[in-house]
């Protein structure tokens, strides 16, 4: 019974925590410019993320070590430097973008310029991490993030042709702006499969003290939670396609995105949009700061746990404190949050191979996985994701130049 409670909580956490600044911005831009044509990118990204989360969660539950721990221990410190840098750089930019998302939400709510909110938001996030536990950070923000279900209400109110939405699941070439189309597809995939998401999930499995008995919980949480979370991201795209595409509005600023729910749901939609933007981005800010601290601590062999007092894992606590402070600086200086979001999503996509390909090795190592190593189905899925990650790596920067 307790386990089913954990399953329900895990699923709800995945749904509430799925949307963040990257998925909102890229889904809105995709819907505004290409209607339902990019639904496939969201669906593909969601499936890939579910597979990667299930595997990194299983790896942690079976081995009792996080994915980052195992990367360093089994592939050596020299190799580890590559994924370390490749995850840290885009991860930091995503952190800046999330902080910017909260700040821009507060700007829209109060009229006070977003740059003034950067330091206060970073301080509140820091206080949550310093004083809170892993459960509070993960589940508390995700439960509040369920406000994002408003996008489903908005989509239903807009009465789209659901057959046309379904047709978007099949990739099709656009009739115009090919570079922009593929650039947005890569951005959507980068937002959906950010490495920090599954590295955080893997560390979270250890924070929650998962063992082999939790493999069922892991499978349902990763599968069902992401399925519904990805469904919400599709609803964001549907709303944008119904509101912006007929008016030929291209989204260049977050202020435009505020209109997406104000159109079908009036004032309630507008208020819920601001709440959703602030809460989901705040939750992601806290999680990415922790993910960065996990990366350093696990990679360099420091003591770490969000459930420990900061004095017991001072280097871990100092790392997330420093990351938050550094992330606040570009926003306080007035960097454009939407441009940063787009660039960080493309860089996230480009960084995927260095974390996906080693997972294939670790998931087949029977010394680590014992009888829970990947079967042929898991390996096929992981090989396909690895191939996709290589394509994204090769395409990301040229597309940023041509379509960004």
């Amino acid at each position, binding site marked *: 019974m307790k386990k089913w409670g954990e399953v329900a909580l895990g699923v709800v956490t995945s749904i509430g925590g799925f949307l963040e600044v990257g998925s909102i911005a890229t889904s809105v831009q995709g819907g505004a410019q290409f209607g339902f044509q990019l639904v496939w990118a969201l669906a593909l990204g969601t499936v890939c993320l579910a597979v990667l989360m299930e595997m990194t969660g299983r790896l942690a539950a079976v081995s009792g070590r996080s994915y980052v721990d195992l990367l360093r221990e089994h592939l050596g410190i020299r190799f580890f430097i590559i994924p370390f840098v490749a995850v840290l750089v885009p991860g930091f930019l995503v952190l800046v973008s999330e902080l910017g998302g909260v700040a821009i939400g507060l700007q*829209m709510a109060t009229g006070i310029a977003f740059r003034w909110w950067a330091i206060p938001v970073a301080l509140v996030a820091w206080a949550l991490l310093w004083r809170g536990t892993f459960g509070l950070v993960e589940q508390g923000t995700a439960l509040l993030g369920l406000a994002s279900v408003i996008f489903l209400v908005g989509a239903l109110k807009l009465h789209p042709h659901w057959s046309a939405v379904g047709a978007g699941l099949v990739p099709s070439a656009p009739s115009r702006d090919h570079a922009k189309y593929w650039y947005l597809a890569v951005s959507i995939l980068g937002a959906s499969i950010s490495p920090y998401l599954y590295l955080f999930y893997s560390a979270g499995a250890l924070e929650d003290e998962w063992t082999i008995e939790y493999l069922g919980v892991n499978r349902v949480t990763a599968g069902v939670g992401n399925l519904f979370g990805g469904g919400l991201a599709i609803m964001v795209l549907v709303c944008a396609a119904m509101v912006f595409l007929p008016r030929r509005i291209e989204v260049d600023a977050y*202020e435009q995105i505020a209109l997406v729910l104000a159109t079908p749901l009036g004032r309630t939609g507008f208020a819920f949009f601001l709440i959703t933007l602030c809460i989901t981005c705040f939750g992601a800010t806290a999680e990415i700061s922790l993910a960065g601290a996990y990366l350093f601590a696990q990679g360099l062999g420091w003591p770490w746990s969000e459930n420990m007092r900061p004095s017991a894992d001072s280097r871990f606590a100092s790392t997330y404190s420093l990351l938050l402070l550094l992330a606040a600086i570009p926003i306080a200086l007035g960097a454009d949050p939407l441009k940063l979001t787009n660039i960080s999503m493309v860089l996230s996509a480009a960084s995927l191979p260095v974390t996906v390909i080693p997972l294939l090795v670790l998931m087949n190592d029977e010394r680590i996985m014992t009888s829970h190593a990947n079967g042929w189905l898991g390996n096929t899925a992981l090989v396909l994701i690895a191939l996709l990650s290589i394509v994204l790596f090769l395409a990301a920067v040229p597309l*940023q*130049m041509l379509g960004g």
Partner: protein
Amino acid sequence: MVAVLLGISAACAKQDLASELDGVRSWTSTTALAVDRRAAGAIDRAVAVQLADRAEEARTRSAKSLDQLAASDSERTLATAVLDSLRDGISRLRAVAP
């Protein structure tokens, strides 16, 4: 790396008249939608003002670009009309967000 990407993106940004005009028209549509939503009480004054400010910035940016991109008289006339339309949209938005 980010600085390099930003630099390359800026250098390679597609500079053609049609896309620049589409950008201006997009902001004109945005102001029209915002006027409608503000009149219905769906959005706050603060957001309406911010949208007007962003539209103004876009108009200033595009006016400079269009000045260089419009080669013929007919293109210049078209660019002026599109920019005027956005200016009117911004004025209407400012009027409903006093």
